[in-house]
């Protein structure tokens, strides 16, 4: 079984360098709303380190995060955080922290008041020091006295993260945390999350953009239509997505001749004449595009347009499901 694995059962992640202090386990978790299945039979074990939860919008990422956070009860299956069920268990929030999606924050509070409130609700012995430390972690000291209503989207994200970090959580769940952050803030956040993961924290980050997880999540869970479609190291998932069969529409000065020439290329497994152009299906995008130039030159064919026709994120994820 390769590092990138079709998910039909439990997929343990145990980054070797990190001591196993906290864990989140989902066993055959399903969640449905009436007739709509949001999450379908998902199993995984998450241990210290950063795990990316990747999938298109509506794939069930937020539902999974909320199930892990105890804010949704699974319709079937079970979830445990450090061996305890999180739903209806307020004490578990000394371990778990959630940074929800969206910009909703009590906008009438200042940034400091918001984080300090989180520290007091966590019943920390020195809430003031904890709040100042968390605000420093996200580099918002200069703006901590302003009301949140005056914050940019990126600043709101950072103050939410500060509120979540204030009690040094063992399990940190972040729902699309980089929305609105500029590149410098992202890099800063990535460094901070990495050091948190090295200290033994289980971090789960949801995103619908694969590249957002680059250099951050060593492990990636791919969710499509409520199912866990694949899992593995970031590089493996990216390779799967890049090396999948691709379809191009090529318009040339002589489509019929080009179609005949491309059929002899081993990287091509399907050619179809369209109006105008040729629809080409390849299992090796790199080889096909390299050979295309040679074929065109040898046949004195002028290439007018090359257009990939299946680059939508949904089609990429759909491939992973059907694979």
């Amino acid at each position: 079984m390769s590092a990138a694995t079709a998910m039909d059962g439990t997929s343990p992640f145990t980054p070797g360098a990190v001591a196993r202090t906290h864990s989140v386990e989902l066993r055959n978790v399903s969640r449905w709303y009436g007739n709509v299945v949001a999450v379908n039979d998902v199993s995984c074990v998450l241990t210290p380190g950063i795990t990316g939860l990747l999938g298109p919008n509506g794939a069930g990422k937020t539902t999974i995060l909320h199930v892990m956070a105890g804010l949704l009860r699974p319709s079937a299956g079970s979830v445990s955080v450090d061996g305890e069920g999180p739903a209806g268990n307020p004490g578990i929030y000394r371990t778990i922290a959630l940074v929800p999606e969206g910009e909703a924050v009590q906008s009438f509070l200042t940034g400091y008041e918001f984080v300090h409130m989180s520290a007091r609700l966590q019943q920390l012995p020195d809430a003031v020091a904890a709040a100042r430390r968390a605000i420093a972690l996200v580099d918002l000291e200069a703006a901590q006295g302003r009301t949140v209503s005056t914050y940019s989207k990126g600043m709101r994200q950072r103050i939410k993260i500060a509120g979540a970090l204030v009690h040094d959580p063992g399990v940190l769940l972040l729902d699309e945390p980089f929305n609105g952050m500029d590149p410098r803030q992202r890099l800063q956040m990535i460094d901070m999350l990495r050091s948190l993961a090295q200290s033994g924290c289980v971090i789960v980050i949801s995103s619908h953009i694969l590249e957002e997880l680059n250099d951050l999540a060593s492990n990636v869970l791919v969710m499509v239509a409520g199912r866990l479609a694949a899992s593995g190291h970031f590089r493996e998932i990216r390779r799967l997505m890049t090396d999948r069969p691709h379809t191009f529409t090529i318009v040339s000065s002589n489509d019929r001749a080009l179609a005949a020439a491309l059929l002899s290329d081993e990287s091509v497994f399907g050619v179809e004449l369209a109006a105008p152009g040729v629809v080409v299906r390849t299992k090796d995008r790199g080889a096909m595009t390299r050979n295309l130039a040679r074929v065109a030159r040898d046949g004195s064919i002028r290439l007018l347009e090359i257009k990939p026709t299946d680059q939508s994120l949904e089609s990429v994820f759909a491939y992973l499901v059907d694979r």
Partner: protein
Amino acid sequence: MSGPLDMTVVWLTWRQLFARRRIYVAAAFALLPVIFTIFFKFAADDYEGARLAFFSGVSRELIIGTLVPLAAALFGTTAFGGEVDDGTLVYLLVKPIPRWRIVFSKYVVAVLSTVGVMIPAMVLPWLMLSGPDLPFDVLRGFLLGGAGGAAIYCALFLSLGLATRRALVFSLLYVIAFEAVLSRNLVGVKSLSVREFAVAMSQAASNGAIVLKSYVVPMTTVWTMSAILLIGALALSLWQLSRYELAERV
């Protein structure tokens, strides 16, 4: 943070309730009876002879019958409803606080805010009208009756704020249709009306200074129904919050 109240939840709820323009609405509620009293003082033919009847009428009809339920609807539904609406309830739910303490803290703030509007609305007219025929027992009776009504209304509206995003609309419909229209006109409905309970409590707490000529709900019924509504609504709020789920739109 020991005890039934969580002071951080109290502080947050307080800030929420009086954020934006709600503080002006609350001030307008409190000042309305004062304006009526000023008109009465200058316009009434027999001011001294009519002041007890005027104060009783204002306290019973305007304050207990209208302002208290409206203020309770505003504060009770907003205590949870505001956070449900703007999506910030999640920040309370992911904290290690027992749910009953969250419910109780928010309930206490809603009641105190409602009573905080009612006290100046009653005390200022009483001070303006002061005289031997308007003893303190009258004020005390209406204050305690109004506070009792506020306690029940807030419990009901707190639960409504967790049940629906249109809690304020439904609570206003309830106040207008049930409390203002039905309970005033149908004797059988009075045994279910919080307004009538508050009026009966006012009479009972006034040491005989308030004597109402119309039908007054027996105190046994008042205490029994009040306890059922109060405890039932708070228990329902606790159950709702314990079962509250943040659903992703799918």
